[in-house]
Structure formats: structure tokens, C-alpha cells
């Protein structure tokens, strides 16, 4: 909801909420697959930046997924 959350973090967290019913590991794989299929590379890079600098801003499953995504 917060307007100050970086867009890629907000989007990754939104996706993670949709996969919350799945076991974390398969959810992370599915989210990573989704991001690779639909995100522009600069958004992936930006997400990696947040993984490195503010991992706490990411939902744990989103964080796990982000780590699986190549930038």
C-alpha cells in the first residue's frame, strides 16, 4: 500500500501473496519463473538491488524467488 515501496518490491510481494497457499519452495520456483517470463531485465536488476540492500522489504517467499531469478 505504501507509495514509498519501490515498484519492483511491491510487485514481487504482490505476486508472492498469490502463491502463499503453496509450499514455500515450489512457490519460490513458480514466482521466479513468472518474473523471468514477464519482467523487463532492468526490473530484475532493480529487484536484485533490493535483495542486496533491503532484503527485509521483501516477503520471505518473494525474497527466495528473487534469489532464483537471473538478472
Amino acid at each position, binding site marked *: 500500500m505504501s507509495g514509498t515501496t519501490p*515498484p519492483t518490491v511491491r510487485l514481487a510481494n504482490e505476486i508472492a501473496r498469490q502463491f502463499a497457499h503453496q509450499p514455500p519452495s515450489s512457490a519460490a520456483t513458480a514466482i521466479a519463473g513468472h518474473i523471468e517470463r514477464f519482467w*523487463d*531485465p532492468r526490473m530484475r536488476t532493480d529487484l536484485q538491488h533490493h535483495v542486496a540492500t533491503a532484503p527485509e522489504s521483501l516477503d520471505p517467499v518473494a525474497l527466495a524467488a528473487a534469489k532464483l531469478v537471473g538478472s
Partner: protein
Amino acid sequence: MTILKEPDFGTPASTSSTSVTVEVDGIPVTVPAGTSVMRAAATSGIDIPKLCATDSLEAFGSCRLCLVEIDGRRGTPASCTTPVADGMRVRTQTPKLEKLRQGVMELYISDHPLDCLTCSANGDCELQDMSGAVGLRQVRYGYEGENHLSLEKDTSNPYFDFEPSKCISCSRCVRACGEVQGTFALTIQGRGFESQVSAAGVPLMESDCVSCGACVQACPTATLQEKSVVQLGMPSRTVLTTCAYCGVGCSFKAELRGDELVRMVPYKDGGANEGHSCVKGRFAFGYATHPDRVMSPMVREKITDPWREVSWEEAIGYTASRMREIQAAHGVGAIGGITSSRCTNEEVYVVQKLVRAAFGNNNVDTCARVCHSPTGYGLKQTFGESAGTQDFRSVAAADVIVVIGANPTDGHPVFASRMKRRLREGASLVVVDPRRIDLVRSPHVEATHHLQLQPGTNVAVVNAFAHVVVTEGLVDSDFVASRCEGYEEWAEFIARPENSPEVVESITGVPAAEIRAAARLYATGGNAAIYYGLGVTEHSQGSTMVMGMANLAMATGNVGRDGVGVNPLRGQNNVQGSCDMGSFPHELPGYRHVSDDAVRTVFEQVWGRSILPTPGLRIPNMFDSAIAGTFRGLFVQGEDIAQSDPNLAHVTAALTAMDLVVVQDLFLNETSKFAHVFLPGTSFLEKDGTFTNAERRINRVRPVMAPKTGKHEWQIVCELAAALGYDMPYTHPREIMDEIAALTPTFAGVSFAALDRLGSIQWPCDEDAPAGTPTMHVDSFTRGKGRFVPTSFVPTSERTTRKFPLILTTGRILSQYNVGAQTRRTANIAWHPEDVLEIHPHDAEVRGIGDGDSVTLASRVGATSLHAVISDRMPVGVVYTTFHHPVTGANVVTTENSDWATNCPEYKVTAVQVALRADAAEAAAVPGTRERAVVD
């Protein structure tokens, strides 16, 4: 081309498969059983005189002009109401019949003004034609007796007049309004000589009339006549084309006098509309020649500078050099384009090719992002194809019709008329919508169930439906076993108690018993069809909901034949087409992912450029990246993103941050306020190409006039590509379609020549289906097995709070179209002069708001003001508005929330507060003062 008059067989075709042979005036003719004698005669080339019959309406038998003699039968039966019987011998011309018909005509003419030579219908009047046909030579009765000649004209409708003195009380208009349109605005009042057509005793504009024009078309005289014909005279030539408004894609005869468009008449052979229309396509074409249209290219250095008219060469050269400068400084990916669902397939295709081949990236998206992108995603995941499953005709075979988050009578009126016809015949209706849309209760139509859910809880409702199907043993096990995969996992998920109607009741607000009953009806009521609109897609779980509906249809075996399916009602005329044409940043034409090496190779060979294998930016990502500084140049084809996109403060901040915004459009619009280059576009009357409607039907758009700006839009794009050093040397749009067909398997059999031959084609069209595919997934799904996908309900993060205690949902109305750039420039404005806020009496009362008061509407991102309309169509706690007028800028308040899978904005759920304006008195005069972070 001369004027095209379609044959009128007098009564509708019979669908019987049994044949009957009769003899008409000695000519044998074989027709389906149930055909009228009149139609059989017409089929063999014999036109029996008629006045009250026309083949769009059931026979009525009132005028007695169509009498015939039948061997072995007494009297002179009316041929329109008499069905053929095997071996029947009919005579249509005998001295007795001639006398009878002349007598009938004489009576009509004796009460009709004899001003034929100056009448607007001269040359297009059936009364005139019939006088000739029956050989009327004298009228023995004068005007001295009682007559209707002094009755007053009703000129209240902006598009057509009603001149009752010319009326012959044939009741064609009354029947057209009921049978064809389904509005029942007209009746015949009085009996005998007193009988008169009436719109409930009030002028048409004050009646229930929705100005569809069906009565005007049905009227055999000048009684109901287009004002444009009265003013300009009878047209003399016809060009067949397609409406450029909504996703129904109605076919029209554009009728011209010289080069002037006189009227648009719906085409009987149109696959989508079969001779019907709505007020937009039929009448609202004046915008095409509106003086506001920009005719020359314009350029300016800064958005604060005044526009400077320039030559095409300068505008294109300037655009190309600025785009290249941006790329040199900020990288290849720093520019992109947005395609328009209002443009033709050919125009869209060249823009995405410009981006991919000349810009060298995949930063192309389309305005479908903000409406139906979840449809593409959801149906592709489950069925394997990003499109609806049926043709429109299919609704005539449906027994249960479920309408979810769509308002067809306003949004897709011509399809709604088909649907209402089927409902009047007895099909059951379930409406799932927070708002009591007109369909819930309208003349002769009543929904069996209206599930008035809380906005944002669609997935909970569809899951509860499926829960009932699975747990009550209503699954079509044979269908699931032979056609689908993933069922076990899905069934285990859906059967969990959390998905039961009883548990979700507190979330959705829909009584559990109501959901159970509706689900049983859907699963067991025969052919069940789902139709849905933006009330499904424009949510944070838009894609999930599309998959939820697909799951439900598969579980009950409601896919793959007539009368069933999952059907998106698409918003704009070419939403389907713009998506098909590769407008998404991750997909090449035909919905093939850019990472697919084989597909890319095919395109690379023909285009002679390499294509990036990674997805580009979607529209919301473009805005985010613009603010971050990595995206700086944008080509916008015919879309007003600064009015139609959500969270306008964010959009305007993004547009302001860009170095170059190029807008191609008819009019200066909200977006062009942020533009550096304006390239004037063409209206549909100038375009040459194709549109693809919601049923995948590719229709031809034929030019009625040359481009008023001197250039076709595809030419401009090709010249821009050339200026960027990439040649797209097409000489005609047909060559663009040939390239599309060569590169896109689902379009393999499509060409302008095939379209001219077949009228229209529903893709997939290939060797196996050379005439196209009306119903998809017949024997197997496009992806092989239909795939069940578990769809957990995840509530939107947009919640009401103490500060914003109401939910705003948005929609549109019949007479206006999207951001209204076109309809606001026509007389349609008479029906919708401003956007209003509908609010429940209870919510209004606690705020001290009265009907018509000026109110502020505020969300956490912005505020605007409009007039309130008190209405109990919404549940308590939900308010509703439309977004047709920039002055109100309803999207000032919508937020950045979006569908998780596609980033389609969550327009349908925004937490808001509504308050009476403190300065209500002065605001009453000025609706739509808006406040936002970045002013326009």
C-alpha cells in the same frame, strides 16, 4: 459503387433441417419447413407486395397487402403468416388479388400526405414502392374525412425524427424495438383509426428509448427518419465497413452522397450484428469530421512551449533523431511504444514491428494492459489460447447465461440484444455484480439470481461455485477425464471448507444458499455460458478470476460446443486484434513468447533484424522506469493514457519526466499536454485494414474517404522506421496482412481477398479451417489438455479504512465510449453531459448528500468532484462512477494496485470517501474541479 440494398425476404429464415417443395406461380421452390409462403416466393425471385413484413421481424399479418391464392384453400391468406406445406401451389398475381391489394393501398394513401417529391424518403419508401407494385392509379377518398395529417413531429432525439402524419401503423417499429433491440420503448396506443405509435406518451428522449435505430431501419416510410437524411438527402453509394467503437464489431453500410457520409446503416450480413446496431455505431460518427481534429503534424521543444505546425518530414525526422539521441545517451531500452486498440491490426502490427525491429527492444505494450490483459493470461494458462471460446451467435443455444462483472446493455449493446432475445425465450440468467445492472430486471427479462458481491471478492465467489460443483457430485467426469489435466489437485483444493459458500459468505456478502442454487443451475441447467467483462479483469486477482471461470467451465463440461464457453466481452473495437498482433512486451504476434528461439528466428528472417529474447516494459513499468530515469522516450498510438490510466498523478509525473513523448491521435488530448510531437491520426472512415472483435472475428474496415491528414497511420509509422534506418516498404495494408498471415499460424489463411470473399473470418484460420473457427476447443484444447489451476482467494490490499470507508467501482454507459474523445464530440452528449457519482441512499443520508449535490470524491492518491446521483443499484458502502469526461478525471483517485500477473490496474476497487462540497453552491456550476499532485 452504387447504393447497396439488401434483399428483404419478408420473414426470417427457418432453421428447420426438413425441406419442403412448393410451386409459386408455376415455379418450383424448395425451402426449409416452417418458411413462410412470402419467403419461399422471394427465394424464387417473386416479390409479393408487403408493408408490415420485413425479414428481421416475425410475421405480423396486419396490412393485408401480401394476400395470395393457394390451390385447394379458401379465401386469400396472407403470405407472410402462412407457412409452406409440401406440394402447395401458390398464385401471387390474379385479378382478384390485384383488386384487393389496390383497395388496401388506396386506404393507406388516402390518409397519407402526398408530398412524395419533397419527402426525405423519396426513392427509399416502401409505401411509394408498393403503390407502384400494386398498380394504384387513383385514390377515391379525399382528405375531407378524419385523418392524421396534422399530428405533430417529435424531433427530440438528436439523430432521428418521428413524423406521425406519415405513419401507416404497420407496427414494424414497435416490433423492432421489442424483438430486435429488446427495449420495448414503443407501443401502438389506441385501436382502429385511433391507433398510433407511442413512446409511452412522452417524447422519445424522455422515454426508455436508447436510440439504437432499429425502429428507424424497420420503418417502411419516412415516419422514422434519420435527421441526416432529411438534411443531406438520400445517399447514393455504399461502402461496407466496421464500427470503430466497441468489441462487438458491428458491420455497417456507410452510405454516402458524393463524398459526404449521410448515414451508417447496420449490415444484415454482418457476422457480429446481423443487421442490428447501437446508438454509437449507428449515429455517433460526427467526431470524424469534427473541427477539433488536428490535421497537421506539430512539434515543440518543451511541453511548456506552444505547438508549432510542421511538415510531415520535419515531424518524422525530429522524432527519429530525438529517439536515437535518447538511445545513445541512455541505452537501447530507454524508448518504447504503446499501441492502440482503436487502430487496425495492420496499424498495430507496424508499431510493434517498429519497436522490435527499429527501436531494437521489446518495450511495446497496448492499452489492453488496462482492460483485458488478464483474459489473455488466464485463458492461455488454462485453455491454451488468449481468446474467448465462442461466436456471439452461440448465446442463442445457451440455457443458462452467467454474466460476471459486465454490463452488456451499456457496454456491448448489440450483443446484449442477442442475449436478451435468448433470455426472453426462456434461458436462465445469473448476474454476478456489485451493482444492479439493467439486465437484472428489464422488460421481459429477470435474473434468476443476482449475486451482489462486495467488489474485490470475485475469486471467492467463483471458488464457492466450484466448491458446490465438486462437493455435490455435479462434475462432468467424462469431460474432465478425457479432456483435462490437473483435476485431482484442483478438486482437493476447491473442496476445502475455506472455499464453501457458507465460509465465504462473510467475505463476499452473498448468501450461501444463493451461491449454492446458482452453482447448481450452472452445472445442471443444460448449456451454460459465462460472459464477463472488466468487472472480472480489473482486479488484483483479475487473472486468477479468469482461470477460476475456466476451471468451472471445464469441471462442468461447458467448453467446446455451441451455447457454452468462457467469453470475454472486450471493451474497445480492436482489443482482441491489438493483442493478437504482438502488442505485449513478452509476446510476438500470435501470443508466442519472445524467449522462444524458433519463433524469433522466423520473425528475424523476415524482418532482417535480431529480436531481443527478454520481455520489455509493460505500461505501468514504463511509468515507473520513467520516474526512475531509465525510460525516456515514448510513442503513443491513439490512446489517452493521461486520462484512462489509473493513479493519474503518477502517470503525469512519469510523462513529465520523459524527454520525448510522441502522440498519434485525432484530437489533442490529456496525454498530448505532455507531448513534444503530435502526429495527426485518421478516423475509421479513412482507415483501410481490419479490426478483430471479441469473438475473434476479423472484419474489414474500408475507407470511405482519403486520409484527411494526407497520410495513413501505417504510412507514418513506416516513414518513422525508415528515418531510423529500418525499411518497412509496404505499399498497401493488404501487404501488411500478408506478412502477418505468413508469420502467424492462427492467421495463416487470412488475407484481404479472403475477407472480401467470406465477409469476415474468425481466427484460427488455416488449412484445416479455411473459413475460420467459430467455436474453439471442440475436440481438444489448443494446449492439448485443458489445465485446472488452483485459484486461492487473496483479498486485495485495497481496504476501506476509517478515512476512506467506501469502495469506488467504475464502469461506463451506453452512449459514451471510454475516455469519450469521440462520443463527447457528437450529439450523444445529450445522454451523458457529465460523469456522476452513484451513491446508495443510506450512504448519502449519513453524509447529508442530496440528489444532484456536488460532492468531493477522495482516495489516498487524489481527489476530484462531481455531482451525486442517489441510487439503490449499489449495495451500501459502494459508490460508482464512469470515466468518460476528462474534467472529472475519475482516475485521479484510482490507485497503483494491479493484477498480480499482468499489472492490469485494479480500477474496480478503490477505497474512497465522499463528502458534500463545502463550497457546494459555486461548485454546482462547475463540476469536476480536480486536485492532484501534478497539475495539467
